């Protein structure tokens, strides 16, 4: 939980009005993210640790309850896909 994720080089995260979604762009590829994936990746900046991201999101979405499990599961998957890397 103390590890710090950052986007792998060549990856860009941004909001796309036409798709009404956050997307992840990379060489010749684009993934459209669902709401929670978008909310998590928006906090991946190479400075916040996984733990801090959980805290930020729990404050922002108090109705969602504890988020540690969801966040670390998503980040693990994002790392497996090589979208992010750990510092």
């Amino acid at each position, binding site marked *: 939980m103390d590890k710090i994720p950052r986007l792998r*080089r060549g990856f*860009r995260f941004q909001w796309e009005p036409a798709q009404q979604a956050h997307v992840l762009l990379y060489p010749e590829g684009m993934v459209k993210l669902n709401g929670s994936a978008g909310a998590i990746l928006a906090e991946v900046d190479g400075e916040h640790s996984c733990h801090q991201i959980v805290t930020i999101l729990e404050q922002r979405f108090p109705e969602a309850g504890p988020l540690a499990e969801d966040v670390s599961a998503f980040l693990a998957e994002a790392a497996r896909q090589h979208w992010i890397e750990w510092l």
Partner: protein
Amino acid sequence: MNTPTDHVGPPLWLLAELTYRCPLQCPYCSNPLDFAHHDQELSTEQWLDVLSQGRAMGAAQLGFSGGEPLVRQDLPELIAGARELGYYSNLITSGLGLTEAKVQDFARAGLDHIQVSFQASDPELNNAVAGSRKAFDQKLAMARAVKDAGYPMVLNFVVHRHNIHQMADILALCENLGADYVELATCQYYGWAFANREGLMPSRAQLVTAEATVNRFRNQLAERDHPMKVIFVTPDYYEERPKACMNGWGSLFLTVAPDGTALPCHSARLLPIDFPNVTASPLEDIWYRSPGFNHYRGDSWMPEPCRSCDEKDKDFGGCRCQAYLLTGNADNADPVCSKSAHHDRILAARTAADHATAGLEDLIYRNADNSNVFCRG
């Protein structure tokens, strides 16, 4: 049945073919055979306007290709414009004409990625295929410069019967260079590659061996949790069902040719269809309302066997260019499909690939002299 204009989403991918000019002469080039007759090019302002219209419609991925896009002196300006608009921009280059200074300039201007294409894993074959000496060393140097400048390294190898046996060497070379993505793209047989198909298409035996090599290599990468990603595009001539070409005609991809002709894919220019030009109509009209883009949307245009086929939502009847080139009528099912009455053309090409003897010297190289031979009228 779907009518053409139902559910047309925005063009998410824009391919800007900046020029047909190129210092190389690849015999599989996807440019039209008669490129020498289309030597008009949009101005810087016109390109910036196309990019801005495309972005407003929702395009997020942008490819700068050609020809060789580096011959456009205004490339840095176009890159900066694309960045400002919020595109993810890809430069697709042979690496010829690239320098370390340019690689860094482009990065500063906001280019996201540079794809360097190779013709083979060793200098002799690479240079023979590209029709140029020195090309290989230059490509290696530029691949390294790309990585050093902080871009992801994306290497592209066009695969055909004269280099497919080098798969293991190609992959080793890519790993040594530190590639992040490797695209092993077997020629798709349009344009120059169609004219040279007999001399380019691998045999099934060659393909099976190559696939096994690639899969072994992929497994090794996975075992080491290595991030290099290997994409192997195999020729659809060995399939029994066609590919869902461009994810459907006019559904995601918009290509603008050097002279401003707007196309649903980069080879569609060979079809007997009138395509609109960005100098005459707004991009939005072109995409949503032009007859050219609506021509093969939906499925009401389909003849049999596609019309009554329950797989038509999966492959949209395959590739229109392939149907046209192989059957003379672009409405037909892509002959790759085993249900097509013209599937024998594909079978004949497979047989020819088993017995082909032509060497590299027998291929028709992509240059203006050869192009003039293909120019109509």
